[in-house]
């Protein structure tokens, strides 16, 4: 049995030995191609406590394609290795089916994220990494506290979450959710995120906000949905309130940022709010499709924008909106990639971001939450304010001063993969709908 998980794990271990050789990137690429092939042909972990499904298979496939883009983009040995480790842990987390495997895989993802950002060069990066580490530790603490309460209340470690629960175990599960909300950057557990995402290296932020967060959201949904669906009277008000507050605050704060990375970090928080709406809409049969669609759309566009930021910083030293002025004249292709992904985040149709939002929002309408959806839609419209504002700097303004430019090659293939994903899932919705309910 040589599944996706084992392949990625072995490749990650081997890659440790290959630092500072020219073989690291080829090995990583072979491993990720292999894993794409294996996932496509239906590989699963096959151990007790792990279980695959059609929806998870599709999402794993997409995760691997996105990580392929990340690997193509990345030049640094450290990051390449951690990317492979993240891939391994994510595959495990997505398939985990019992409390034990869920917690262990979740912790694996968290710890690898810490290792990823611990590769520090500047004081600012250190600040971002430390904030993330502290928040992450608190999250772990709360998660474990919740798990313990749940176990004392009669839960079992080696089984999926019980649907019928006692008062204590219900409390335990909600406490666990609070811990997980740290990772999902739900307000008021979002404080660390804007700083960390904006301060750590952009390619690391791409993995954190784009990949890790989405994986946690999908795994969380898969793991907790049956329980939450059973306790609608309790879960719906909590989730709706958190979703509405998160998206509103995220979008509102994004409007005032000067640094592009901070705008996108707040936009990432706002998107967590949209994702959470799927958790509130469990009464509807569309909730799981909505979450899956949103996750797929989000992983493509969010990873793409942060990788683009990485290119912008490396090539032009661009960090602020001000410096972005007139980029379209300097590098039309880069501006084009950036614009499409930003419009996808804004929810402009024929791009994945629109369909993701549309399905989640419809699920919520279907569950009778139309007032919350109205707020979400207005939020989405508000968010156009800052996305279109970035695009305005790209296209409408004149460039200021001569551009300092380095001549390393643009990782075009990496961006093309992400662009293709954003377009494909914007047009061919049946790809997701065909598996959406098979969580």
């Amino acid at each position, binding site marked *: 049995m040589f599944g996706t998980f084992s392949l990625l794990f072995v490749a990650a271990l081997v890659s440790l030995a290959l630092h500072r050789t020219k073989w690291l990137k080829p090995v990583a690429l072979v491993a990720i191609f292999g894993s794409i092939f294996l996932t496509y042909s239906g590989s699963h972990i096959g151990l007790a406590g792990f279980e695959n499904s059609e929806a998870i298979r599709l999402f794993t496939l997409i995760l691997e394609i996105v990580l392929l883009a990340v690997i193509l983009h990345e030049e640094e040995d450290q990051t390449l290795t951690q990317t492979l480790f993240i891939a391994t842990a994510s595959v495990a987390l997505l398939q985990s089916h019992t409390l034990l495997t869920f917690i262990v895989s979740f912790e694996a993802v968290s710890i690898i994220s810490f290792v990823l950002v611990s590769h520090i060069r500047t004081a600012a990066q250190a600040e971002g990494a430390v904030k993330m580490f502290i928040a992450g530790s608190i999250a772990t603490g709360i998660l474990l506290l919740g798990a313990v309460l749940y176990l004392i209340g009669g839960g079992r470690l080696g089984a999926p979450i019980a649907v019928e629960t006692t008062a204590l175990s219900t409390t335990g599960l909600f406490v666990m959710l609070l811990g997980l909300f740290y990772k999902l950057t739900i307000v008021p557990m979002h404080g660390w995120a804007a700083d960390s995402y904006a301060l750590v290296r952009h390619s690391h932020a791409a993995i954190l906000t784009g990949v890790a967060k989405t994986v946690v959201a999908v795994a969380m949904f898969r793991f907790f949905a049956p329980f939450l669906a059973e306790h609608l009277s309790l879960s719906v008000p909590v989730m709706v309130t958190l979703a509405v507050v998160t998206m509103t605050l995220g979008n509102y704060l994004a409007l005032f940022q000067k640094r592009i990375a901070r705008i996108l970090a707040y936009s990432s928080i706002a998107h967590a709010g949209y994702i959470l709406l799927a958790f509130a809409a469990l009464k509807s049969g569309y909730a799981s499709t909505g979450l899956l669609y949103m996750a797929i759309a989000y992983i493509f566009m969010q990873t793409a924008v942060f990788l683009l930021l990485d290119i912008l910083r490396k090539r032009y030293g661009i960090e602020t909106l001000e410096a972005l002025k007139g980029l379209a004249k300097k590098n039309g292709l880069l501006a084009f990639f950036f614009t499409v992904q930003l419009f996808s985040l804004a929810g*402009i149709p024929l791009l994945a971001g629109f369909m993701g939002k*549309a399905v989640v929002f419809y699920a919520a309408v279907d569950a009778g939450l139309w007032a919350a959806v109205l707020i979400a839609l207005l939020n989405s419209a508000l968010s*156009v304010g800052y996305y279109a504002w970035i695009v305005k700097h790209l296209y*409408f303004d004149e460039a200021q001063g001569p551009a300092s430019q380095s001549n390393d090659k643009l990782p075009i293939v990496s961006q093309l993969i992400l662009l293709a994903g954003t377009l494909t899932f914007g047009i061919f919705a049946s790809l997701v*709908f*065909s598996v959406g309910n098979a969580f």
Partner: protein
Amino acid sequence: MSPLFFIFGPMVLAALVALYGKKRDTIVKFVSLALFVWMLIYALELLAILPDSGYLDLGSYLAVKDFGFELTLQVDHLSVVMLILTSVLLILVALSSWTMKRTSTYFALLILFAGPITGVFMSTDLLWFFIFWELTLVPMYFLVGIWGAEGRIYAAVKFFLYTHVASMLILLAFFLVYKETGTMNMTLVRESMLASPVLIWWLLFIGFSVKMPIFPFHTWLPDAHVQAPAPISVLLAGVLLKMGAYAMIRMVVLMLPGQSAHFAWVILALGLITLFYAGFMALYETHLKKMVAYSSISHMGLVTVAIATLSYSGLSAALFEMIGHALIISPLFLIAGFLHHRTGSWQMGDMGGLMQKAPYLSAIFVLAGLAALGLPGTIGFVGELTILIAAIKSYGFWLILIALGSMIGAGYIIWTFRRVIYGEISQTVRKSDFRMDHVEFAALVIFAVLIVFFGLFPSTLFDVINAAFAPIAAQGGL
């Protein structure tokens, strides 16, 4: 030819033009012109094979099971008329943009606009309709933001945000429709019982009002129209506003007839307010292009009043006036933009005596202006008269009030003539050079010819338009 070619083809073509069109300006211009002419031919072909009543099915694509989401393309007379109008305007806009700067990018965006606008008029799936509806915003945002005048950035962002917020209401309404009927197909929705039609009606009405625009949701328009380059103002007034009116007819009046009848007084009242408010604003305005923009809003108020009659003759008159408005306002915008380009001023006070310097241009301006105030023999007269008759038939004689609106129109148009065209020649006009590119002038002449032609032979247009609402006449109302 598959209809998909005219929807997605332009999007692909736009990308190709943007990538390979640099330094091939002439080719790019002719390619886009060829595309628009082809669109016109296709639309005329559709007209020829349309059944007398009901839809012509153009196929369904990209079906998504479990989510009534399918690119269903069906056309009837109403949509084909809109397609013809759109392609004619696109041809004329392409001609009047002949000397535009950064040609290849500009025309790429124009081509990009052609795809979704075709989709809007062809799609009968609510969600796909919405997708195309929203997608028209993207090229417009760039066209206003890059090629616009001094205040272009503010205008572009405001336009994008304002209309996008309105679209969100429309999307919510569509979701509610789907939840309650289980179908996204507009023709099926009409036959089903909606549980919360009042909420849906208001969401749709407000959403589409912004695009039309109807008072008090019109404030984005003066900014966008004034700052946009003149050919894009034509596109905004001639196509985008018509898209709003089309949606208002198709999705408010025809899809929710019961609620529309119940709230007809709202449509009527807001239509009248729009007509008079914008008319008075136009009277007050000294900024030439803003005057034209308000006059445009005022005419859309007239269209709204016609829609509010909810009758066969009223809707026909509305559609006729929509076409008339597109043909009349366009040359006014083009000339206003051209004058600003040459004199550097927007103020009517700076102009005067244009007739002595540029007689042909002035003649077209006067013709279009007279058409706007409803001079017999022009398309404007027929539109206003039929609306007046339809409105009086539906609501009684007091709606002779509409004629008063026409008088305000006469006021601001004739006063504009006095200030811009006639009178003593001003310093600014004396100094400026009004020689116009021949292709751009040809576009103006075509507008003038159409205004007179349909004024003299309105029946050529009414034959087609009446067929659009024939089912209403057949069943004696909605």
